[in-house]
């Protein structure tokens, strides 16, 4: 195996891993993992209604500020 291929693989895999880490840290910062049990159940509350709700809420926050 040539050295350059090993180096390239190393770089690519590290970058991919880094992306995962960054997303994880981002989620951590957003408080997505603050409440373990709620996080597990979030998948149940993820339909059209929730999207509409979230949209309305955004609008409300904008209006208030």
């Amino acid at each position, binding site marked *: 195996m040539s050295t350059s291929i090993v180096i390239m693989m*190393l770089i690519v895999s*590290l970058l991919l891993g880094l992306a995962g880490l960054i997303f994880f840290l981002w989620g951590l910062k957003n408080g997505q993992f603050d409440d373990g049990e*709620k996080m597990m159940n979030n998948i*149940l509350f993820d339909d059209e209604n929730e999207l509409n*709700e979230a949209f*309305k809420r955004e609008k409300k926050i904008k209006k*208030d500020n």
Partner: protein
Amino acid sequence: MSKIDCNHCGLKFDKSSLIEQKDSDKTLYFCCSGCQGVYNLLQSQGLDDFYKKTNHKELSPPKEKLSDSSSFDSPGYIQKYTKKIDNLIEISLIIEGIHCSACVWLNEKVLHSKDGVVEANINFTTHKAKILYDPKLIKLSEVIETIRSIGYDAFAYDAKAQEERTNRQRKEYYYRMAVAIFATMNIMWIAVAQYSGYFSGMKNDLRVYLNIAEWLLSTPVLFYSGWIFIRGAYFGIKNNIVNMDILVSTGALLTYAYSIYITIFTNHEAYFDSVAMIITFVLIGKFLEVLSKKKAIDKLDLLSLQMPFESLIVIGDKKKTIAVDSIQEGDLIELKAGERASADGIVVKGNASFNESNITGESKEVYKDLNSNIVGGTLSVDGWIQYIATKTYANSTMSKLINMLDNTLENKPEIETLTRKISEHFSSAVLILSLFTFIFWYLNNNFETSFIIGISVIIIACPCALALATPLASLVGLGIGIQESILFKESKFLETVAKTDTVVLDKTGTITIGEPHVVNYKKISTYDENLLFSLVSLSSHPISKGIKKYFKNKKIYNTELENIKTIVSKGISSEFNNLKLLGGNNKLMEDFKVEIPKIDSQNTFFYFAINGNLVAIFELTDEIKNGSSELISYLQSENIDVHLLSGDTKEVCEHVVKNTGIKNFKYSLSPFDKLDFISNLQSKNKVVMMVGDGVNDILALAKSNVAISMGSGSEVAVDVGDVILLDDSLLKLKKTFEISKTTFYLIKQNLGISLLYNAITIPLAMMGYIIPLVAAISMSFSSLIVVLNSLRISYKNRKIF
């Protein structure tokens, strides 16, 4: 009869007892009007999805009677619990009645649908909600009413700065751990490639590239994740303390620097993997400690909750409600039944019974009339009085207690933990040995060899095992505690309990149950016991409850009594078919000229008379809890001094002491006396454990080295306590000692293992037999042994219990 589910809460009831509601196509059943109301509200708002989401879980029916919510709008309340963010207000609420994630969903949904509520976020685990609202559009009381309308209840709590700080600290550890673990895992893979290359041969340039990759990965581990240790080492040096952080950071920094040297100037394997491993392992150990740290609580606020926000004062013929802080000496304050006194004072008009248990610890009510002293923070149970404030609110007894508590908690004495003691000496010894090794080798060898050997001493002495020894064993100990319903709030208390040599016990609620209990029942002439049962059922006084409990086992039914009168602090009178019933203490009997025999005893008596003739006498006493004598004899066999403290009279204490075998006791103590007693013991170098449950014990609890509270005790006492016995059993206190002693024994064993390991390997490293590569591998091995040894506690415990 068939049982069917209530359509809202899902609890099963007999069909006949349910409320029927005819809907368009089906019949609905509800157990109460509360459930019906909530169901209809949800239907009308299109929120019936809720029932799908609960997955037919049982809910609790909504509470019927709730206190008036308008008091939530008082300026004092708002100021105390809310935070202003721009022109919005943020409040933290605890929501009662949350069972499942659907409840969270429903609450958030309903709140979001309200105008003015900008953001509502409920934590499912803690039931705490953060709500951001616009005060121009919605009032706080309306927010709380919204939650109540769907069958939950909410009350504000102070989102304490301290709690937020703990959470932030924990989050910071998560970040650092995530980075460290990610990088270390990747370094491990690269290290595998390098080590296999070491044996099978590898191109030199590839080895250098792998070194560079490791270098890149280990840099954030050392300087971001390891920053905690570098910072700790800096403060250590500044304060002339050699701590474990110094050893960790010097080891890691030196190895890192040396590895950079290898990468740039040679083509050997570098030791970046050791750097990352040391930091990651020790960080995990430290994180375990942070995880089991007590959630900081604001003790002040809970106590203040017991205090009124406002008082009704009388000026001339006008009455005015003012904030407690603006009460002046000499103000005339009016107090109705069920209210708490704000400032201290003297009664000028009326009479009332007071529950002073938060000052004296006794559940018996105290009768107050003209010229009696009123203590701030005590509760008027019945009656009506006006009193003149003799002190301002801030100088009143309860406020003083609160201030003192804060002070005492901040200065809580701590015993030095074993690990800290050892690591101090250990770190300096290793650093000095490493330096000597380097100098010794440098006399005969070149710089590089001597430097490697010097460093290998530090790496081999890596305190990983040492750092993991305590947190791991503690974590297992805490886990066993929880299984036994013993809650250790912080792991260090395991060690403190194990080192305790003096135990101070409170009487009421700790040694005794705290409720009067009938010990002797003398029937003077035959009478209808149903009448007495009905009479005592009318009162909520502890003595009435005790008698009611006594009759519960017999087949007794309630009769309709007429003309019921409660005579403050004395008893109750009533009529039944021309029979005059009278039940109460000796004072009541004297008032109604009923002849009673003279009895000399420390117990409480209750007399029952019909038409002026005494028919029955009850003797009541506060029962001693099961297992008290067993606990005392266990403590004495472990050479622990036991003291009993009580706010009660000498006679009552003597009775308890005689029955439990306690040798030392003190009586008629105020909360401040109890505090002095503890400080006095501590000044004699005793490690003091205080066991208590009431507000009157909190100062002593706060002062003690380790405070044990009963789970059913007052909320403040539970908060101040370091260890909580959730089921109030005294035998659990014995178990607390056993768990702590086992855990501490294991901690010592773990420390022993890691020291023994070092005793063998450090001389080898000094002689130059161990290269850093071997050091790194054997280091993980020692950590592994410590981990396995800690898990042994659960096994050991099975044998003990």
